[in-house]
């Protein structure tokens, strides 16, 4: 009869989750189960709906990253109707998108995952939250966090209709043009956003990099996995959130494959286990070898660290300098330390701010030409973008009246499903030895999880599930 420890609910992340840790006779970790008790079923209930409703319907998969779904969906509609948005519309979408990424990553750093570092993983749990963060960084800084977030949300509301759920996406463009006054207002915000991003990186320097305890976590083997990495890149192989090709690098950082969104079925595959409601994505051309890392396993990772690993740099100057600094500090590319996700995330915050600023300075975004009307019969479309938590695919098939007949959605967090399992189990095995358990130690298990900023609302747009993180203890030669 094994003992069981339950962490329920997993806190400070987007969605429901529960971790069950089973201990053996020596009170060491025998098995860890990660459970997501949820069911929604978007893949089915969006069938029969009008295609033009998809951007506002599918974004309800996730209230943490609705703009990602809205964007992937709008792009899938462009493809479905065979229509390209005019330049101003494309830029407005990208501006909205970077504003969202900036805000969303900051939310994670200050509200969700960051408190573990800023306040400390072993801090009393009543302090491990935004209020504790404000105590630590000072009320002035706390106000700044809240203020910049509010103003960026304002930019999103201005461009897309709603701070939270954008409604502007249409096949071939957006619903609303912006004025020169709007643009001036946006520039005011983006200028400050760049400064704020720099400030946040300084805080990260202070509380993490220059803090022995935290820095130790960052490079600790507990949180390390050698995997493949995937992310969107532009035509110079630099990180891009809104558009590009999908690039995969191997655990040594070498390009493994680069493909267009419409070819995703050739490269990605999901497996189903009878004991789990969560499907597990892996690289199709390597195949599923179980929950193991390394060159021969199809397990890959996505999201901030993966995007930086899978690219050759950042497209904006300040972010590029930080990119070089991070890889220099952590011993070169690719970096396999899961907690470096937090650092990579802040570099992306800086990039998003700089990119927003570039777009806000581009006079073309106030052009009234924001739509091209489709003139071909809809049939099938794929859209992709980089959600905060990784690559997101929307794939629709419709009849000639643009009523959706089939959908497939590959959601950011699902790409990381296998890696998240591996990370939780590894952290649990390290943190819990001989039955020594404390709130702080259990929080370390959750930290493995929060580094990915997993969005369980997204991952379970499909179904609820238990995800045994490793079903058998196995030796390295054998697949499960």
């Amino acid at each position, binding site marked *: 009869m094994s003992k069981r420890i339950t962490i329920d609910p997993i806190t*400070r992340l987007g969605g429901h989750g529960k971790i069950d840790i089973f201990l053996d006779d020596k009170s060491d970790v025998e098995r860890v189960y990660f459970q997501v008790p949820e069911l929604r079923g978007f893949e089915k209930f969006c069938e029969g709906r*009008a295609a033009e409703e998809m951007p506002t319907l599918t974004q309800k998969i996730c209230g943490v990253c609705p703009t990602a779904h809205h964007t992937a969906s709008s792009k899938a509609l462009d493809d479905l109707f065979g229509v390209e948005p005019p330049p101003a519309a494309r830029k407005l979408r990208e501006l909205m998108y970077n504003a969202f990424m900036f805000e969303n990553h900051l939310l994670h750093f200050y509200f969700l995952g960051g408190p573990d570092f800023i306040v400390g993983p072993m801090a009393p749990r009543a302090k491990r939250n935004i209020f504790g963060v404000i105590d630590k960084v000072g009320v002035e800084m706390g106000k700044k966090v809240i203020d910049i977030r509010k103003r960026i949300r304002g930019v999103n509301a201005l461009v897309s209709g709603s701070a939270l*759920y954008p409604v502007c996406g249409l096949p071939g463009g957006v619903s609303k043009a912006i004025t020169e006054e709007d643009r001036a207002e946006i520039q005011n915000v983006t200028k400050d956003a760049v400064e704020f991003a720099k400030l946040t990186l300084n805080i990260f320097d202070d509380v993490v990099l220059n803090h022995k305890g935290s820095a130790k976590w960052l490079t600790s083997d507990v949180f390390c996995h050698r995997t493949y990495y995937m992310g969107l890149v532009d035509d110079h192989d630099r990180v891009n959130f809104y558009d590009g090709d999908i690039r995969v690098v191997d655990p040594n950082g070498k390009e493994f494959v680069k493909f267009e969104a419409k070819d995703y079925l050739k490269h990605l595959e999901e497996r189903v*286990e009878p004991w789990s409601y969560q499907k597990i994505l892996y690289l199709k051309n390597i195949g599923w070898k179980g929950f193991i890392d390394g060159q021969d396993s199809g397990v890959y990772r996505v999201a901030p660290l993966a995007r930086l690993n899978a690219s050759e740099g950042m497209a904006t100057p300040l972010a590029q300098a930080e990119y070089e600094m991070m890889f220099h500090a952590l011993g070169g590319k690719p970096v396999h330390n899961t907690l470096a996700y937090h650092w990579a995330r802040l570099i992306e915050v800086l990039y998003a701010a700089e990119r927003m600023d570039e777009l806000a300075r581009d006079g073309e975004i106030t052009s009234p030409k924001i*739509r091209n009307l489709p003139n071909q019969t809809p049939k099938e479309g794929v859209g992709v973008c980089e959600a905060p938590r990784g690559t997101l695919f929307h794939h629709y098939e419709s009849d000639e009246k643009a009523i959706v007949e089939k959908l497939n959605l590959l959601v950011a967090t699902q790409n990381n499903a296998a890696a998240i399992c591996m990370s939780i189990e590894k952290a649990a095995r390290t943190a819990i030895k001989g039955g020594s358990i404390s709130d702080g130690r259990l929080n370390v298990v959750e930290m493995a999880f929060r580094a990915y900023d997993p969005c369980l609302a997204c991952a379970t747009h499909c179904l609820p599930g238990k995800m045994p993180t490793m079903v058998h203890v196995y030796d390295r030669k054998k697949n499960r």
Partner: protein
Amino acid sequence: MTEKPKIALYWCSSCGGCEESVIDLAEDLLTVAAAVDIVFWPVALDFKYKDVVAMNDGEITATLINGAIRTGEQEHMAKIMRKKSKLLIAHGSCAHLGGVVGLANFYQREDLLSRLYQEVPTTNNPQGILPQHETIESGRKIKLPDIHDTVKALDQVVEVDYYIPGCPPTPELIKEAMMMVLENRLPPRGTVLAGKKALCDTCPRIDSKPDKLRIKKFKRIYETEWDPEKCFLDEGIICLGPATRGGCNARCINANMPCRGCFGPTDNVRDQGAKSSSFLASIIDVTDKEALKKTADSIPDPGGLFYRYGLASSILKGKLTPKSS
């Protein structure tokens, strides 16, 4: 020294958007947080279930629950929160009406499963494995949570005192609801804490609406452009403003997009979808049977559109299917 009122926030079958809308209170969140004691809020604080279970009945002043009810666990939690709280407030469309996730009631639970595990093109599942309710694994039973056949709104499983509508609710409405609780100035129980009139009353385009709307064909938003100053209905584009409660600040309209009904029906309407179909019928300007059928057919997916947020709490609640014995 009096104790601060205790507040809890919980989510059921939801997307996290309602939590975000609380965080969007921005500096007001700090004001509210200073005035109350937040005792449970999984998205932002580290309190766990056992902390709630240990509380006395009625100890929490008010709990805001967002999300619809789909699983046994969610229903169980809703009942616990009900017991521990003096006031239970349905927060957002899903708790209020079933929300977008309620659209699943047009399908069977089994349809959801087979689509996801056996049909989608990325799935490699030659044996057609479906997740099992119970699997025995190395002597350990692994159980999956029980999933109800249908999605329900919160008040279909527990008594609800107030409703904050919207997908998402506006931060202003959430703040006002909180202040009502804190300042003890609550309206009669059962009130929906938003506007009393239809969205059209507060629509910035109301002046462009002609006395008599006359439509021969409904246009789809992908196939046409429209005047950003004019009433959508007058342009032949379906907008659910007349059948929808106001109080959203006309967010979608201001982004030049038509209303899709997230605030639910006004007080005197029982079924938002039925009302939507009626008011659209009333503005059609043809009575010849053939022409009329054509006009009706120009509405894409009427069920999905009119019941987008309110299917689970509508009169019929979802697709009628023979009861499986």
